[in-house]
């Protein structure tokens, strides 16, 4: 007779849209089933549910292909075709081996001859590995110089431009509609129904039932497009033209004075700022403050002048003042004619009428006009809503962007246009409108509204990376040089991963001129990442990995990256290890809670194999590297998620830096500190309490979903539509690079514009064939990818259950191609195709659909595995084998777009699989 089962509360944070809470049903020591943790149904913005990926966790745990004990490489040769010759070793041997390498680095010095850290570490999954890393962040903090800039697909796989510009403009590392209130969404390629997680799907479904209309603008009919009221099949990479057409219609074909939110433009934007003849804000000569024209008395005044009553939005005026150009240049003007920033915008948008846009983006002009009119009709300009007793503007319209829309060339244009569309009707950061979710670049990281602090010129503070002569970091401190090349990426713990994270791979192969030589790190640690599959031009990244001298891979199964490893360290996985994390408040992608607190992940079962909890691994490595005291002190200072000593001295659960703490001791202290902080000492809970109850919450104000109250309270403006600060940094950066003879970043510097100018972005990819001496006509198709709800971020390609489930959704079996286009090429359902770009090729079976443009093909997810057990037998294609690592395809923020021009050759007839 088997014992009764019990349910163990844990969390799932396999994707960026988490965390979601679940319970594991365990009987006789076997984890049998997963179910949502319905105890949190009322508080969790996704009804307390978990998504399909969480149900893979059991198979993930019992996967017979797991690495079962530490392994050491015996074949010194590295290459895709080299057998690593892994042999089992004990944990002591493994940790000693790694510890010895780490120790050697500390003896040699933390950086190499080029000034780059000798130790590098990469994690994947949009920051989610931290939710599984235990105290490893404390090890990283204690270590010192560490290169976290080796990308695993960042720049093409994330919402890169949105991360950077979004955070600058409205603290929006990720943008979301205010879904519970929004009534009209223009969705350019944003695939929220596949990537928005439980909360996203739950809230968006409610919005649809309520009557919200969503217009999906994208080349293929995605999951999200499927459940949208309208699909607009746009030509790839022309979204900026579509959005410019919308703006043109609003400001030129409609009377913007009637349809736009004039108070928002006057008071919450830089629209009334006067712009001098050199393109910089006209400023008061004495205070240096930007000037606005007050129509009340016909004078120019500082933007924050107490007597400013009617700032002019349009027109040109004669004023005296100064312009602050780059590198301290000051242009003094007397009686010079200047325009308002909004007038500049009106003039700038003049050429971009819907007929022009239609020719670029293949969306009929009347459709563009109609969508703009619908947007205006739903914007409710002038209306208000009461939230928690406070009256706020109510603007239930939003514009969302997908990843290939807001990445790479044209990404800036789309992000700017989207945010401007919100601003024009006052829909930025107000109920119903376009919101940010969380902050990753500015501080404090745990409070988006708390990060709204006054900065220069009436805008929110933002810490650009220095570009002045004195402050510019001439010698990059890590290999991707984010502080040197990208002022906008700032310098937070997230910045290294957001820099041009593909540059280390690229520069290792092709050293750029006048630049420190990029050597591989002495030791590279990888955790929950597989760049040899997930990067752009993944095969080339695999070649670079083979050149790394020593790789420590936290390994779950064999994979394409740890194939090159020297040591495999199998950590206890999701259901076998222990951690407490922060939940609630607002998180991407649509996690808007009315609560905040903490949740636990704990061993539901004993480890199945000879694995170690990452917290114990971190402690053991800290000891071996001789940094135990610093490691423990980092934990005490909050590197495990919570400061163990209250800053105000109210509590102190800190650990003894002289002793290696046990896993339980660490998390018991974190539990106590977290609950003490959360409850102000009223409900202090230890580890055992969290093990039983799973989570602890307290209310979080809905008002903190919106920046508007904080902006009004501090009299701040959004830094739109005119970009002055950013362009000044761009010009200064150009000067700096010129001074050291770097000309390979010149194209990227052209992206710094006060108001973005359209260029035919598709041609960048079409003409790219010429880089390889090929004819663009050889590659007539656009190849795109899309997120898969079932797979994305889950590291679950090796799970047959997930494959079975995913196959219910069209496109997971191969290359999605338009039925008519396929017929033209003699391609039938299931035929084997070879897709070839200038830089690579992939193979897959034809999946014929109508919901895709005839000039486009689609490959869902990231595949082409050649090592990962089970996945390697799926024979699925991958865009990552077709895209190229290239400066030509890298924009000014360091991102690329996940698309490529390809040719398609049918190579074999096939039936359905």
């Amino acid at each position, binding site marked *: 007779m088997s014992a009764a089962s019990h349910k163990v509360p844990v969390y799932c944070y396999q994707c960026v849209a988490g965390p979601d809470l679940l319970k594991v049903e365990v009987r006789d020591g076997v*984890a049998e089933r997963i179910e949502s943790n319905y105890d949190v149904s009322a508080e969790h913005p996704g009804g307390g549910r978990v998504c399909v990926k969480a149900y893979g966790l059991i198979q993930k745990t019992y996967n017979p292909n797991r690495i079962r004990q530490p392994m050491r490489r015996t074949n010194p040769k590295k290459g895709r075709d080299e057998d690593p010759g892994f042999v089992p070793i004990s944990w002591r041997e493994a940790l000693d081996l790694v510890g010895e390498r780490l120790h050697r680095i500390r003896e040699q010095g933390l950086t190499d001859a080029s000034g780059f850290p000798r130790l590098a570490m990469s994690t994947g999954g949009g920051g989610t590995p931290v939710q599984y890393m235990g105290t490893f962040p404390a090890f990283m903090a204690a270590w010192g110089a560490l290169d976290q800039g080796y990308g695993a697909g960042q720049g093409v796989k994330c919402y890169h431009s949105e991360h950077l510009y979004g955070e600058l403009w409205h603290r929006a590392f990720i943008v979301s509609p205010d879904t519970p209130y929004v009534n009209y969404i223009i969705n350019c390629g944003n695939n929220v129904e596949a990537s928005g997680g439980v909360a996203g799907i739950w809230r968006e479904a409610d919005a649809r039932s309520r009557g919200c209309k969503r217009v999906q603008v994208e080349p293929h009919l995605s999951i999200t497009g499927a459940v949208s*009221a309208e699909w607009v099949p746009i030509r790839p990479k022309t979204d900026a033209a579509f959005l410019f057409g919308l703006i043109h219609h609003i400001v030129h074909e409609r009377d913007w004075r009637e349809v736009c939110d004039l108070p928002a433009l006057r008071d919450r934007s830089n629209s009334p700022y006067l712009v001098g003849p050199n393109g910089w804000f006209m400023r008061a000569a004495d205070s240096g403050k930007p000037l606005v024209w007050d129509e009340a008395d016909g004078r120019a005044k500082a933007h924050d002048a107490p007597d400013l009553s009617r700032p002019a939005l349009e027109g040109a005026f004669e004023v005296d003042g100064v312009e602050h150009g780059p590198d301290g240049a000051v242009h003094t003007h007397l009686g010079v004619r200047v325009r308002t920033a909004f007038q500049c915008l009106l003039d700038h948008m003049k050429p971009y009428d819907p007929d022009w846009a239609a020719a670029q983006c293949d969306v009929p002009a009347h459709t563009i006009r109609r969508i703009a009119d619908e947007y205006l009709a739903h914007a409710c300009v002038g209306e208000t809503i009461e939230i928690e007793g406070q009256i706020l503007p109510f603007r239930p319209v939003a514009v969302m962007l997908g990843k290939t829309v807001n990445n790479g060339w044209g990404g800036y244009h789309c992000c700017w246009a989207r945010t401007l569309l919100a601003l024009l009707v006052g829909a930025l950061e107000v109920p119903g409108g376009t919101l940010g979710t969380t902050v990753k670049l500015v501080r404090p990281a745990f409070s988006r509204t708390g990060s709204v602090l006054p900065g220069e010129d009436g805008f929110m503070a933002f810490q650009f990376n220095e570009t002045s002569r004195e402050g510019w970091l001439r010698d990059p401190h890590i290999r991707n040089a984010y502080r040197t090349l990208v002022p906008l990426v700032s310098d937070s713990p997230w910045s290294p991963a957001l820099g041009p994270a593909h540059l280390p791979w690229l520069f290792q192969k092709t050293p750029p001129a006048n630049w420190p030589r990029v050597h591989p790190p002495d030791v590279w640690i990888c955790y929950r990442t597989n760049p040899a599959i997930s990067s752009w031009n993944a095969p080339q990244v695999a070649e670079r990995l083979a050149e790394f001298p020593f790789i420590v891979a936290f390994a779950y199964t064999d994979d394409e990256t740890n194939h090159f490893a020297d040591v495999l360290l199998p950590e206890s996985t999701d259901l076998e290890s222990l951690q407490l994390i922060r939940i609630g408040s607002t998180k991407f992608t649509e996690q808007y809670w009315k609560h905040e607190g903490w949740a636990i992940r704990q061993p539901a079962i004993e480890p199945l194999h000879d694995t170690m909890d990452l917290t114990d691994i971190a402690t053991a490595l800290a000891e071996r590297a001789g940094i135990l005291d610093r490691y423990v002190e980092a934990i005490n200072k909050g590197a495990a998620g919570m400061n163990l000593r209250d800053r105000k001295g109210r509590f102190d659960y800190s650990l003894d830096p002289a002793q290696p703490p046990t896993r339980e001791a660490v998390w018991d202290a974190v539990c106590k500190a977290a609950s003490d902080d959360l409850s102000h000492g009223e409900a202090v809970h230890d580890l055992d309490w969290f093990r039983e109850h799973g989570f602890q919450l307290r209310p979080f104000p809905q008002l903190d979903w919106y920046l508007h109250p904080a902006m009004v309270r501090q009299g701040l403006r959004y830094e739109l539509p005119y970009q002055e600060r950013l362009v000044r940094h761009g010009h200064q950066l150009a000067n700096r690079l010129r001074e050291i003879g770097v000309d390979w970043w010149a194209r990227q510097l052209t992206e710094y514009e006060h108001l973005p100018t359209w260029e035919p972005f598709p041609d960048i990819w079409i003409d790219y064939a010429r880089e390889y001496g090929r004819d663009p006509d050889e590659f007539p198709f656009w190849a795109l990818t899309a997120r898969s709800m079932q797979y994305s971020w889950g590291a679950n390609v090796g799970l047959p259950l997930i494959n079975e489930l995913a196959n219910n959704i069209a496109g997971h079996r191969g290359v999605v191609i338009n039925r008519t286009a396929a017929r033209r090429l003699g391609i039938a359902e299931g035929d084997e195709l070879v897709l070839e770009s200038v830089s690579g090729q992939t193979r897959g079976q034809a999946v014929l659909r109508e919901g895709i443009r005839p000039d486009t093909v689609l490959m869902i997810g990231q595949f082409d595995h050649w090592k990962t057990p089970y996945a390697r037998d799926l024979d699925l294609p991958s865009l990552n084998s077709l895209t190229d690592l290239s400066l030509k395809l890298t924009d000014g923020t360091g991102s690329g777009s996940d698309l490529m021009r390809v040719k398609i050759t049918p190579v074999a007839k096939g039936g359905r699989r």
Partner: protein
Amino acid sequence: MSAAANPRWGMTVDLNRCVGCQTCTAACKHANDTPPEVQWRRVIDIEQGSFPSVERLFMVVGCQHCEEPPCVPVCPTGATQQRADGLVTMDYDQCIGCAYCAVSCPYQARTIVHEQKGYFASGRTAQEVATSHPERQGVAQKCTFCVDRVDSGLAAGLVPGVDPAATPACAASCIASAIQFGDFNDPESKVSRLSRDIPSFQMHAQLGTNPQIRYLYETPAVPGRDSAVEDDERLSDLANPLTGQLQRFWDWRAAMNWCFGGTGSGLATMAVVLWAAGLMPATLVRVWALGAGALMAIGLFCVFLKIGRQMRFWRAALRPHTSWMTRELYVVVLFYLALAGLLLSTPGDAPGVAGWATGGCAIAFLICQAMILFKARGIPAWRVHPVPALIVVSGLAEGAGATLLLGALVSGTASASGVGEGGRAMEGMAQALAAGLVVLVLIHASLWRLHVARAAEQGIGPLARAEFARIGGVLHGLGHVGPAVLGLCVVAGIGPTPLVAALAGILAITGGFWWKFRLIVRAGYQQGFALPRMPQRGSGHHAAPERHAAPARA
């Protein structure tokens, strides 16, 4: 709260909320421990129209717990039952795995797994072993609406559809709140309110099953519209989830029962008729009777090989009041009893009780065969008229053919041994039989033409119709024209009678085997899925209409 004393459990599925994420599929697999590739609940991905006027949607499918479930009456054992609250249940210990329920379900909700396998090639994991259900091996399985959760929840005072622990796992887990579960007899339940407030449809409502899943298809931004009729090309695409897949529950082994059993019972019927008409010498009755019994035995043995739990085959006797499969079993028993009586007695000039009983059982057996196929309502190519008549007529024609063949053999033997009288008697019988055969194949040909002509309007899909075309050529040539021409030759005395009669018989049997085998194994496409109404969304003329005013404030 569920107020109704007699609940009627059901679901609403909102097509505008469902995003096809398969969370319900996964939650169902966990809650019900289903093995690889078995999905009691799944979500299909449908596309309609052609670029640039396209619509795509996701539809939750599985057992519909019909008010009039076609699977229940056909079940020969009572393993599939319907409870008072409408839930259609499975008793794995009763089921013999005959798959009659599976071919009778128009919703492709049933599966049979014959061997326990894990997901990984290297063997089952500890969790797979711990959650295995050997009782489900070789028997039918399907969605139960998580009857255990509902019952235990009710016992614990919980409300199904409200409390997750008392709600089917798919509905409880749904991350879009697309699937709702509850009591349709309670006007205040969420499912009742939703189906009252939002237009909905039932799938295949025209079949009269009254399925208890209602699909909601409208929102204020996305009105509904009539679904476009799928063209034959799209419905011929097996990658299109609306297209019914070829059933594989009944393979050649099952088909052999219709082939051998049809010929055998036809043979027995013909023999008794000829005997009664004085056209068959009493001495030969045993030969025919033995032949018929052997042919039917071969067919029955084949079908025995097919059932999932062979040692439980006797349980098929438990549902004579509803199941034609049970009735067939009884008829078989009676047939062989009568046959035994016939063989043990001395045949007279006319059929006695045993003779008439044998013939009666044979014709009853043919009718059972006809009705088994006819009641398999999941297969459009089987469930319509004139399929039963085709089966009966074909059986009789094959029986006539087999009688001719046997007669020719006997006649040849008689001639060889110099028994002239017997040969002349055989000739008379052959002429009468040949005339009958001609009539039967002409009737069969007419019925087949009728079946083909009405196929499209009877809802038979293009894949099955294409198979009909392939069947028709051979059937008409081998099974109709051949026997008819040769039969007329026999009647007219053209050519050596035994040889021509034997040829006519062989062709008649071959034609019968051919069309029945192909009908069952190659034309047995399942119903597929269909949407009479659709949300209006997508592109081109599928897209929702323009909307220039915001809806009322939430």
